[in-house]
């Protein structure tokens, strides 16, 4: 269970001029430390200009984030609090942008889902949490709508995060947006 607390975060090491990435050192279970990088970059899709992807992980030999490796964090709460605080900082200067977290990997989807549910009260002071399901149209022939390759024609549909959904019914994709300023 991940608990977010913006008052308990790691210190930043480097921050890009446009706040598109940040690095910080996280402490490992063996007492060592490793440099993690958080990047918020636009999707490679010109049709969704205000949807950005958040990625984090240690830096590989190629200088890019290796988000597939499992890091033995001593304090995973502090690590994720640092990541989400950075996302908040990014969104405060990019208010029109929505950050997306791909839940296509079961482990990641569970992580994101539990993070949003566990920290519902805390995060709702800052963000609008959104869940996205994939839907397919049922045709009158009782077949489903298909692509030219005869695969189901899935269409993503966003909704306000349903906190009553059980963890076994996770969303396909997770998003969060800065809470609009209240009047």
């Amino acid at each position, binding site marked *: 269970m991940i608990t977010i607390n*913006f*008052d308990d*975060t790691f210190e*930043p090491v*480097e*921050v*890009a*001029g*446009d*706040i*598109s*990435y*940040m690095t910080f050192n996280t402490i490992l279970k063996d007492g060592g430390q490793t440099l993690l990088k958080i*990047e*918020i*970059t*636009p*999707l*490679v*899709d010109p*049709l*969704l200009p*205000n*949807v950005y*992807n958040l*990625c984090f992980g240690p830096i590989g030999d190629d200088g*890019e*984030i290796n*988000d597939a490796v499992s890091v033995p964090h001593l304090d995973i709460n502090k690590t994720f609090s640092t990541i989400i*605080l*950075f996302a*908040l*900082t990014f969104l*405060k*200067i990019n208010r029109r942008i*929505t950050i*997306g977290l*791909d839940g*296509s990997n079961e482990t990641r989807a569970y992580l994101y889902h539990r993070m949003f549910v566990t920290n519902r009260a805390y995060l709702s*002071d*800052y963000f*609008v949490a*959104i869940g*996205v399901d*994939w839907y397919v149209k049922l045709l009158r022939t009782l077949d489903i709508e298909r692509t030219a390759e005869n695969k189901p024609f899935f*269409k*993503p*549909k*966003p*909704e*306000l995060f349903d906190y009553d959904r059980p963890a076994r019914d996770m969303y*396909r*994709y997770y*998003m969060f*947006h800065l*809470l*609009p*300023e*209240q*009047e």
Partner: protein
Amino acid sequence: MCYICVMKRSIQNKIEQIQSLAKSQHLSSAGSSVRSTSVNDSLAEAIRNEKDATLFMAELDAVIKIAASK
């Protein structure tokens, strides 16, 4: 009540620290590299054309507006 007005000073300080580092370090953007995770993003793959994108963004904006009205 404006949510920014009630954000804890300690958290606002942390945000300002990040912003200050960004200004002082003069590091270039991350946006120049095409990330494999962004290329394989399932939402980007599901949006096939402008019609899909327009509908999705309209629904997303509506969801955000609903949240703002609560």
